[in-house]
């Protein structure tokens, strides 16, 4: 195993750092090199193999000024991080696996949002990360969101780029009592990319998280979303659409920890998998001993569009007390041929009918997006990737 390129890159970075930060980051780097990139031998990485990254060489990024107008979002305040941005290197140390350790060694500060008690963000924040470079580069960002009691915010993470690169994004979110966060994540990275992300959300009493995750990227993407329902009355809704095609590989791992009474969680993911793409969904709900009156439901449905597409789904329940109501369901199937016939009997061509039904299947997640410009952007990007999708665009 050789992680030489990473340690070399770190040496280049280290010279720019003040000594105490350097020491902390060296410790993170060491944790990373000791663990190495996860392999399929680990249960959590059973379907996603990162060992190929071991010998990859990614350079530290350099500044760029790409035209990002096509990624502009109306009715939102933009915060843009091109090639990792120019944030400070002050955030160090954090528990976590190899990916988090790698991030902790290299990351610049990304979004740092702090909303005071009772305050609301005037309009959604559009956090756009973009990576692109002449040679393969890597970017690492560390984001933080803190909402005080009864504060409200909508944050849109939007990840895109060009060419071959590695990016890691680690996000920590704390919701105060009664706070409400709507968190969007649109992963639209390039075909040559590897996108590794982890988000941890802690919820205080009666706080509400709505997390909507859209994976449209063409590269390898993995997102670990860990939700901690730490106090009574907290509610989390996790929604997701993954639509990989070509040779894309998308892996969503969610963990919802119920640690307090009277918390609720809902999880609703849909997959539309085309080409030779692979999709992985692992949704785990853990109900700890003290979390009585837990109400939890997970649903994942998958549509396979091609003979070479693959889906691996595992909705899990781990329950350590008896006063709960938990359910999960998973389905895999094709487009309903009765519906195709119905549409054809009304004059729609067969492939348009199939595209419309595929779009409708995805729409049930897309409709969760209440921010209209974002919903339009996601719809457009989804249709662009769908065979016959262009024909639908005029329809919708």
């Amino acid at each position, binding site marked *: 195993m050789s992680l030489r390129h990473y340690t070399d890159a770190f040496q280049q970075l280290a010279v720019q750092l003040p000594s105490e930060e350097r020491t902390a980051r060296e410790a993170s780097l060491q944790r990373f090199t000791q663990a190495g990139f996860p392999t399929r031998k680990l*249960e959590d990485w059973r379907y996603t193999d990162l060992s190929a990254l071991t010998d990859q060489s990614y350079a530290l990024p350099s500044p760029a000024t790409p035209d990002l107008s096509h990624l502009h979002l109306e009715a939102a305040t933009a915060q843009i991080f091109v090639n990792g941005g120019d944030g400070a290197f002050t955030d160090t140390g954090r528990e976590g696996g190899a990916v988090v350790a790698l991030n902790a060694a290299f990351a610049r500060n990304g979004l740092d949002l702090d909303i005071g008690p009772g305050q609301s963000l005037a309009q959604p924040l559009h956090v756009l990360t973009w990576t692109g470079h002449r040679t393969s580069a890597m970017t690492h960002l560390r984001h933080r969101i803190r909402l005080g009691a009864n504060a409200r915010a909508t944050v849109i993470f939007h990840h895109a780029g060009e060419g071959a690169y590695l990016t890691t994004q680690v996000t920590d979110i704390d919701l105060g009592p009664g706070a409400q966060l709507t968190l969007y994540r649109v992963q639209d990275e390039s075909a040559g990319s590897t996108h590794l992300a982890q988000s941890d959300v802690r919820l205080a009493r009666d706080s509400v998280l709505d997390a909507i995750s859209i994976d449209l990227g063409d590269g390898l993407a993995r997102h670990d979303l860990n939700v901690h329902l730490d106090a009574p009355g907290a509610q989390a809704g996790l929604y997701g659409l993954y639509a990989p095609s070509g040779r894309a590989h998308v892996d969503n791992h969610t963990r919802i920890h119920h640690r307090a009474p009277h918390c609720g969680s809902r999880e609703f993911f849909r997959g539309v998998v085309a080409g030779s793409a692979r999709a992985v969904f692992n949704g785990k709900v853990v109900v700890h*001993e003290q979390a*009585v009156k837990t109400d939890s439901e997970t649903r994942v449905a*998958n549509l*396979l*569009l*091609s*003979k*070479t*597409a*693959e*889906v*691996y*789904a*595992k*909705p*899990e*329940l*781990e*329950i*350590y*007390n*008896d*006063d*709960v*109501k*938990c*359910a*999960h*369901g*998973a*389905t*895999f*199937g*094709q487009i309903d041929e009765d519906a195709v016939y119905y549409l054809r009997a009304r004059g729609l061509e067969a492939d348009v009918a199939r595209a419309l039904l595929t779009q409708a299947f995805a729409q049930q997640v897309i409709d969760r997006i209440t921010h209209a410009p974002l919903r339009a952007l996601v719809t457009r990007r989804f249709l662009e990737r769908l065979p016959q999708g262009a024909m639908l665009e005029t329809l919708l």
Partner: protein
Amino acid sequence: MSTPAQNIQDLVRKGEYRAGFVTDVAADTVPPGLSEDTIRFISAKKNEPQWLLDWRLKAFARFQKMTEPVWAHLHYPPIDLQSISYYSQPKSMKDGPKSLDEVDPQLLETYKKLGIPLKEQEMLAGVAVDVVFDSVSVATTFKQKLKDAGVIFCPISEAVREYPELVQKYLGSVVPQGDNYYAALNSAVFTDGSFVYIPKGVRCPMELSTYFRINERNTGQFERTLIIADEGSHVSYLEGCTAPQRDENQLHAAVVELVALDDAQIKYSTVQNWYPGDENGKGGIYNFVTKRGDCRGKRSKISWTQVETGSAITWKYPSCILRGDDSVGEFYSVAVTHHRQQADTGTKMIHIGRNTRSTIVSKGISAGHGQQSYRGLVRVQQSAENARNHTQCDSLLIGDACGAHTFPYTEVRNPTAHLEHEATTSKIGEDQLFYCLSRGISAEDAVSMIVNGFCKQVFKELPMEFAVEAQKLLSVTLEGAVG
């Protein structure tokens, strides 16, 4: 006044294991230890041909390179395989299996106590029984009647001698020697078990059944069962298991292989009631079992039904490889974990052939400090056009100290697949319970009724006599855990 919930807790605490007695019989037991010599000893004891000894040794070589699996949701101290005796037989069985008339009366008495009469006049009508006591088969009933139908039903050690070509052809063809740690161990040291062959077109005239009993202290039981259903044949096979109540844990690591050729059907039912340990988790059987059926032929069908009430630890995933086009796999399971019992059980359905269908119904009941996991895999390979699976997986929780977990893996590589997985977990319905109580039904009966209702879908898959037995067993376990 006690609440229904408290009543349940009280019931759960009682607990009683009715098969926990020891038969005081003189036995030949080899000293503990696992080595090539142990294997040579077993093989010699069974008068085995050289090929089988070589097969065992090969398995042992594989085993030595393997490590114990740790992925299961189970917690137990490491098992010292060197402290186990790998062979034990009653002294009276020294000269090999005898006719029923010559079997040691003490052994016959043991089975009678367990509800398995072996004497000709008392035999269960319509059920042929092979009884395995520690490492040897004691007796097989109705042998002649089956022989007349062309059915072979005998201890596997006998089959090795009498039908070597069948054994050699199929042994290890479903569960290869190196399949997993415990299967490799079993392949090296297996002692006895049943062998069944149903010839072409034959519908087996009676239920076949094997009753496994662990008796001797510090022994492990490593049985091996092989069932082959030739083209167009049908067989229904049942197994039961019990062991004495002891403070130490005993290891049971079995391998069961089923082969169904074109249009053949095998129905395999288990009522597993190994000693579960006491309420503090002392003693009990470690049940590490590999069961797999190969639907090798077109339109073949393999159906697993299991009622798992015993064992301190259960690790078992009766599976179906749906290789033949239009083949069908089924798995129906009721598992109870009570006191400190732990179970990690479920199934694997591997869809390879076209139009293959599978059904999974799993009902888990956790009480006391029991921890139970359903672990299942449904895999649809690229070749499996039009595969169908339906999985229903429900857990019932009784008491606030138990746990129920669900780990269903689904892997789909063909777009024509249609799969549905549904799982629910909830506590026993207080409303239902209260309703019963308000109609004058005792808490015990009410819980028993509700739990039996919860399991009905599985019980109806069992042959009649077993269904009744299973319901009683469930009630006893839950008297120890439910009504």
